[in-house]
Structure formats: structure tokens, C-alpha cells
């Protein structure tokens, strides 16, 4: 029996740092992270709480992109489209059909799952670069599609739809912002847990085998077409749920919030956090949410730079980070940690 346990010990159980195994460290970090996340709304202003809710929403969307690009090797420059579908599904359900906000999430997710699957079908025949091109086209066309006259009654056209901010249930002693934060946190935890299990399952290994060597995967009997299409679907599911959450927390959807630059934003978050990483999506969410503030702050320090112009510089900063990361740390922040960690651990 003892031998069995010995044989099954993974590196995470063997490697030590300051007296704890890596697995123990992982749990410690998770507990610390959760405690911080739970305590956060009580220590900062309502606006900052809103910003952290935004971080979580972006993190979920970026996680969707990571599953597709990082783990399955399919490019997408068009995830803003799925985010938009999720957001509009939630908005239309709440605005026109008076559906409670929490019910809109599964619906938005499922609609995006099928939208993603359907887009993934023709995309199957498109290798790397061509898929990037097709999804680029999708992202650029999305705002125009959302403004389409025939569906204006439902979508609100250029004006978009304005929603009501949900109140906390059961008379919980929380502000609306605090409640939305906790609600998003719960949904996020559930989705991250599912993603973790998916990646570490048999299916997840098949998905990654397809990325690493599609032909070998096929000869091993993996139905690559089905896996790729469904990965596209699942990825869109995540991003769609994030879109629905985004609509709920901002209480507003309009076509021009879903331009190609939103897709670029997801890409930035994904690359900065680490494309082949699950926790990396959280770094990514934090990065894309707070960089605009920081870069504006810095730019306005330069003499002669107007506030309006400083806002424009945010994208330069994003762009520089994208290029920089490809140069110095192609695996993103998560990869950097993974690379540095072994220097400090011992068996």
C-alpha cells in the first residue's frame, strides 16, 4: 500500500519550498486568494468594487480565449462577437421578457455554445492564419450586425438597451455593487473550477494533443473535427457568460462597445497572463482593467499632454506590452512564474 502511494506521488508532492510541498503551497495560495477576494468589498470604495467585478468578468472571457487558443491551438481575433452575443442575450431577456438576471447566464452561455460550435465548423477547414483572418472579419462586422434595422426593436439599434441594477436577494446587508461582485465571484469560481477539471480530464488531454500534433492525434483515434468544433463552442460559452455578466454589471449594451478592439483587449489579457494557463486569465483580467488608469496617470505627468490625448495612449501601452511579452516571456506571467519557481524549490 505504501509503495502504491509512493509510486503515485507527483512532482507537486515531491518538490519543497520553505518546508511545504508545492501542492500545499498551491492550496495555501488558493485559500489566501479566496480570503482576499471575499474580504475585498469591505475594504474599498464601491467604484473599486465595481472595477474588481469587471476584472472577474474579463477573466472569464479571457479564460474562454485561453481554452481555445492556448489549450487547443486555434486562433481567435473575434471573441468580442461572442461576448456581444452573451451581453445582448442577457440584455434582451431582461429588458423585453423581464427574465431575472441570474437566469440569463445559462441561456447566454448555451446560445454562445452553439454559435461558437457553428462558427467552428467551417473554421475547421481553416488553419491558423486563415482562422485568425475569419475571426478578425467576424469581430469587425459585429457592431454593424448589432445595428441592423430589422432587429432594432429587440436590440435598441445604435442606442442600445439600458437595464436596471439588480438588488441583493434575501435582504442581505450588501450594497448593490457588493452583491454583484459576490455574484460574479461565485459564477467565476464555478467556471474556473470546471475549466480546471476539463483541462485535466481525458477530454482535455485530447484537446491539447490536437494542438501539439493534429495528425498524430487523428491516428490515435481522436475525432479532431468534433473536438475542435466543441472546443470553439465551450470557449464561446465562457466568453458569452462573461458578456452576459458584463451587461448585468454595467446595465447597458450598445453596438459600439463590441468593436474589434474588445477582441484585442481579450487577446492582450490572454497573452499577458499566459495563454496556456487557467489562473493566468485572472492576471490578464487585472492587467486590462487597471492598465488604462495607470497609463493615463503616467501620461498626464508628461508636460503638455492633454487628458483627452492621454486616454488615447492606453492602446499604445497595450500594444507595447503585447510585443514586449512575445519577446521576453512568450508564456506570459503564468509562464514566467512557472519558469522562475524551480529556482527556489528543492526535492
Amino acid at each position: 500500500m505504501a509503495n502504491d502511494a509512493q509510486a503515485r506521488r507527483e512532482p507537486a508532492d515531491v518538490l519543497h519550498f520553505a518546508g511545504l510541498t508545492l501542492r500545499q503551497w498551491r492550496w495555501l495560495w488558493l485559500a489566501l486568494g479566496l480570503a482576499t477576494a471575499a474580504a475585498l468589498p469591505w475594504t474599498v470604495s464601491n467604484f473599486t468594487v465595481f472595477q474588481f467585478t469587471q476584472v472577474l468578468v474579463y477573466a472569464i472571457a479571457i479564460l474562454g480565449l485561453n481554452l481555445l487558443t492556448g489549450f487547443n491551438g486555434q486562433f481567435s481575433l473575434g471573441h468580442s462577437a461572442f461576448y456581444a452575443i452573451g451581453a445582448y442575450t442577457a440584455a434582451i431577456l431582461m429588458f423585453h421578457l423581464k427574465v431575472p438576471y441570474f437566469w440569463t447566464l445559462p441561456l447566454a452561455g448555451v446560445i454562445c455554445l452553439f454559435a461558437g460550435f457553428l462558427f467552428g465548423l467551417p473554421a475547421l477547414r481553416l488553419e491558423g492564419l486563415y482562422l485568425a483572418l475569419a475571426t478578425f472579419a467576424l469581430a469587425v462586422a459585429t457592431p454593424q450586425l448589432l445595428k441592423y434595422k430589422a432587429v432594432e426593436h429587440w436590440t435598441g439599434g445604435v442606442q442600445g438597451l439600458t437595464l436596471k441594477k439588480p438588488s441583493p436577494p434575501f435582504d442581505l446587508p450588501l450594497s448593490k455593487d457588493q452583491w454583484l461582485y459576490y455574484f460574479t465571484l461565485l459564477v467565476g469560481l464555478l467556471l474556473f473550477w470546471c475549466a480546471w477539471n476539463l483541462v485535466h480530464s481525458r477530454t482535455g488531454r485530447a484537446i491539447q494533443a490536437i494542438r501539439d500534433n493534429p495528425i498524430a492525434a487523428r491516428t490515435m483515434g481522436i475525432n479532431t473535427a468534433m473536438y475542435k468544433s466543441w472546443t470553439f463552442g465551450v470557449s464561446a460559452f465562457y466568453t458569452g457568460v462573461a458578456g452576459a455578466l458584463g451587461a448585468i454589471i454595467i446595465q447597458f449594451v450598445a453596438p459600439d462597445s463590441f468593436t474589434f478592439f474588445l477582441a484585442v483587449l481579450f487577446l492582450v489579457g490572454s497573452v499577458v497572463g499566459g495563454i496556456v494557463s487557467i489562473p493566468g486569465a485572472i492576471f490578464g483580467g487585472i492587467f486590462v482593467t487597471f492598465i488604462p488608469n495607470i497609463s493615463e496617470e503616467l501620461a498626464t505627468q508628461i508636460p503638455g499632454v492633454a487628458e483627452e490625448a492621454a486616454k488615447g495612449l492606453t492602446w499604445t501601452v497595450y500594444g507595447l506590452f503585447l510585443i514586449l511579452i512575445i519577446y521576453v516571456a512568450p508564456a506570459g506571467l503564468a509562464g514566467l512564474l512557472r519558469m522562475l519557481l524551480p529556482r527556489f524549490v528543492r526535492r
Partner: protein
Amino acid sequence: MDLFIQQVLAGLANGAIYAGVALAVVMIYQAIDHFNFAQGEMAMFSTYIAWAMLNGGLPYWLAFVATVVVSFLGGLALERIVFKPIQNAPALSHVIVFIGLLAIFNSMAGFIWEFTIKPFPSPFPSAPLFGNTLIGTHQVGMIGVTLIMLALIWVFFRYTDTGLAMRAAAANPDSARLVGVRVGWMLALGWGLAAAIGAVAGMLIAPVVFLEPNMMAGILLYGFAGAIVGGANSPAGAVLGGFLVGVIENLLGTFVPWIGNELKLSVALVLIIVVLVVRPSGLMGQRVVSRV
């Protein structure tokens, strides 16, 4: 019938814009085997440089030539500085760097020249050509310039040693080195030419759509559509594809009521996907067999 002809002509006029951009897209694709997603923003940035020169009092054609030269050198430098270090990186890295450049050019243009919409002059007289109003003089001029560029590129690739070396470097870099081709510089040259063509396209487009940092987003999509429809490795195909996309877009917009003006970008989206799935080599492209 009159309406039909009018819309075909208007489509050709728009098509000239797309053809110019498609040509630049294909130039890069031939040189480096990638679609440059920053191509539109590079053209936009070049056009701003031209605008700044015109504003500084330079005569039009001098500013035009200077912009083309500056853009050529800029494209060259971009390859040597930004892309040379990652030449062996996977395709995804390249796409990410393209997107990074796109974001930088877009926001730098806004930062330097502000986001307000600016008029840009046309080099062609404003009087209608042949006294008709079906198609403007600027549009005819644009078609002419696009065709001249195509002819120049064709001659360059077909008859000059440098053009031949570029084709060789793109098709088979290892073999090209064995006949003494400096492959790295051929890539840089491809970037330079693409940037120069983009600059010409940008300066001809700006009088129609006005100058602003986001002027190229939709147009680049049409440019891609033109390149894909024509065949991503055929300059002539790209020009033909560009004109075709312009005409298709206009005819669908006019005669299919539910498409109208509003879904024109989606037409490009559908065109790209359908052509890629049904006939990836486009109308005039050569089929490329990928080896395992």
C-alpha cells in the same frame, strides 16, 4: 438598367480602394507568408504623415512622393527591428505582434494628430469626368493609379533580378540562400514595398472617407476579402478581387433590400469565409500543398 450600370460603376470606384489595400496585403503575404493585420493602420499612419507635410505647405505631389519614400523606409525598419528577432517564432506570435502594432499605430495617430476627422485633398480635378455624374474624377484616377501600381509590380517581379530574388526567398528560403539571395533583406524589402503601396492606397482613400485614426478598420476587411477572393498569392488576383468585392457589395446593397447599406461589412465576412472554405486558393491564386 441605368441603376444597374450606375451601381456597377460605383462599385468599381469603391473597388479601387479595396484593390489598393488588397495589393498591399498580398505583397506582405508573398514576402512573409502572413496576413499583416496592422496593414490598415500603417496606411492610415502614412496618410497622416502626408497630411502633416501638406499642412506644412509642401505641394501635393512632393508630399505624395516623400510619404511613399518615408513609408517604404518605415516598413523596412519595422521588419528589421520588430520582426527579425522573432522570425522563427510560431505563427501566433506574429499575429500577436501585428495586433500590437495595430494598437500602437492607431492610438499614436490619435495622440499625435487628435481624433477629429480631417479632410484630405484629392490630386485629381473636382470637375466631373466626361460631364457625367456616374463616377467621379477622383474615382477614375484611383482606378488608374491602382492599375499602374499593379503593372509596376508585375514588371518588378517578372523582369528584375530583385523581384525574382524576392519570389525565390518567399517560396523556398533555404534554396534561395544557396544561390546567394540575402533572404532577410528580401523580407524587409517586401515590408517596405507593402508599406509604400499601403501609403498610396491610404492617400487615395482619405479624400473619400476622410482622415481619422479608425478610417481603415472596415476597409482593411474589404482588402482582405479582395485578397482572399482573388487569391492570396496573386497580385493581379488581389486587384481583380478588390474590384469584384466592391461591385458585389454595391449590387447586393442596392438590389437585396434586407442587406442594404447596413450589412455591407457582413458581406465581406461571408465572402471571406465562403471563399476560404470552398476555394481557398481564390480565383487566380496557386494552390499550395502543405506538407506534414
